[in-house]
């Protein structure tokens, strides 16, 4: 979730998100939200933010941040090449490819 928006909300609760904020989140997430849906989406996201605000209100001083709900640690893998070249098979799954490359509509930074 967008930290900037969460922080902005801390200052003035409990305002629901406005349309420009919804637009920005949708653009960042590459989701299409039609003007008709914007109101409902805003209400639902605001509800989730409300939940987050509720959790933030809990005093967590001295509590170690939890990075993962599972009480386990990451297993490590040996540095070995276990995969083989499956290029033709994988390229065939893409909508377009040529000369061994995946093709996408032209993107220039």
């Amino acid at each position, binding site marked *: 979730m*967008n930290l900037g928006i969460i922080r902005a909300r801390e200052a003035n609760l409990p305002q629901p998100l406005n349309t420009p904020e919804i637009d920005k989140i949708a653009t*960042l997430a590459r989701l299409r939200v039609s003007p008709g849906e914007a109101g409902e989406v805003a209400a639902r996201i605001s509800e989730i933010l409300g939940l987050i605000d509720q959790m933030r209100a809990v005093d967590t001083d001295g509590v170690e941040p939890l990075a993962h709900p599972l009480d386990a640690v990451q297993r490590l893998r040996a540095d070995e090449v276990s995969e083989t070249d499956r290029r033709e098979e994988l390229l065939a799954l893409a909508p377009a490819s040529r000369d061994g490359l995946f093709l996408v509509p*032209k993107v220039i930074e």
Partner: protein
Amino acid sequence: MEWETVIGLEVHVQLSTRSKLFSGTSTAFGAAPNSQANIYDLAMPGTLPVLNGEALRMAVRFGLAINAEISRKSVFDRKNYFYPDLPKGYQTSQLEFPTVGRGAIVIHLDDGSEKEIGVTRAHMEEDAGKSLHEEFATDSGIDLNRAGTPLLEIVSEPDLRSAGEAVAYLKKLHSIVRYLDISDGDMSQGSMRCDANVSIRRPGAELGTRTEIKNVNSFRFVEKAIHYEVRRQQDVLEDGGTIVQETRLYDSVRDETRPMRGKEVANDYRYFPEPDLLPVVIDEELIEQVRAGLPELPDARRQRFREEFGLSDYDAGVLTASREAADYFEQTASACGDAKLAANWVSVELQGLLNRENLSIAESPINAPSLAGLISRIKDGTISGKIAKTVFEHLAGGETDVDELIEREGLRQVTDTGEIEKLVARVIAENAPQAQQYRDGRQQVLGYLVGQAMKLSRGKANPAQVNQLLREKLQP
């Protein structure tokens, strides 16, 4: 009024593991496009990452080498953005709990002084793929071979005060990762990439607004890009303008930096902890194991070369910049027993040869034992320093047996007094006017006469003996 330059560098170092950071796909350089891109690298649904233990050990190795704090627990995060060369839609990186914390790197400046540069952190992350925009008219081609290659991003404090310091820091970092054997550090192939944060301020003032120059790919370009950017910022501020915080690209052809185009939405990566990976715990055992395997690092070796071999700090610095050169020198010096001659031959003659042939020291046509053999023959007087260069050329041409080639080519120095006397007598006879000038007190003519004798002997006469005999014979 003066300006002070403030620079911080973010350096991406590609770790030289055999397989990717989170998958068992090969990372070999130069493979056919997408032949090293498998289901996890392509973000196929249901695939999960498994952390490469060797990449983690390499990160720890770097951390220990710069005396950094090693996080006992580090966490991977998702950095979310959309670009076709990043199929997952996020880069797995580390935000709040990087593997390597605060450390420091000492750089050596041109005036002989040292400066400590703070390292804020070094975090592990995966590389993206490559987009090819030029090949096709309406499409971009995507090669995902590089996607998922392990990187260590090393972030410095804004402690650097000039382009020269930035280059010294970068070279030191390059040297360290090569000594540690965790990366080939090849900037031309993208194994080491540098982003520079540059700002200027009046001395003592608050930090100015910075710009970030992205992806500079050589030491020289880092220097030039910073020079340009500093001048540009000075011009803007002195004309009463303000610096815009932005990302710029360095164009090496036009030698300028330009703002990057069209990032409609400002960087908002919405980081959150990667749920597909558990926290990474690094225990004492692993740390001690890695520590025990650390090689002697450039600074320690530089100091040892000064103390053990009596080299100047400059020579010691040149010879320890790369591990290969240091090994070569050390082998040569111990075999011939004369460190100063060895230092000279390695850093002048051999380095000159390698530069001319565009070879690395690992590819040197002359091996350390042969060079040591040559130096030994200078030391014991078998050949003169001048003739040694001829022997050196033979070695460069592929010969290896120094003694055999000295005999075969008749390069042995003439030290027989009788022969040198004959030589001197002949020179005096053939150069009577000059000999007379010397007798009349023109001391500098002696050099000419010695030169004639050396020429006559085709360089083989012992010049010290020639010199002395000439003086004696021409005594008034």
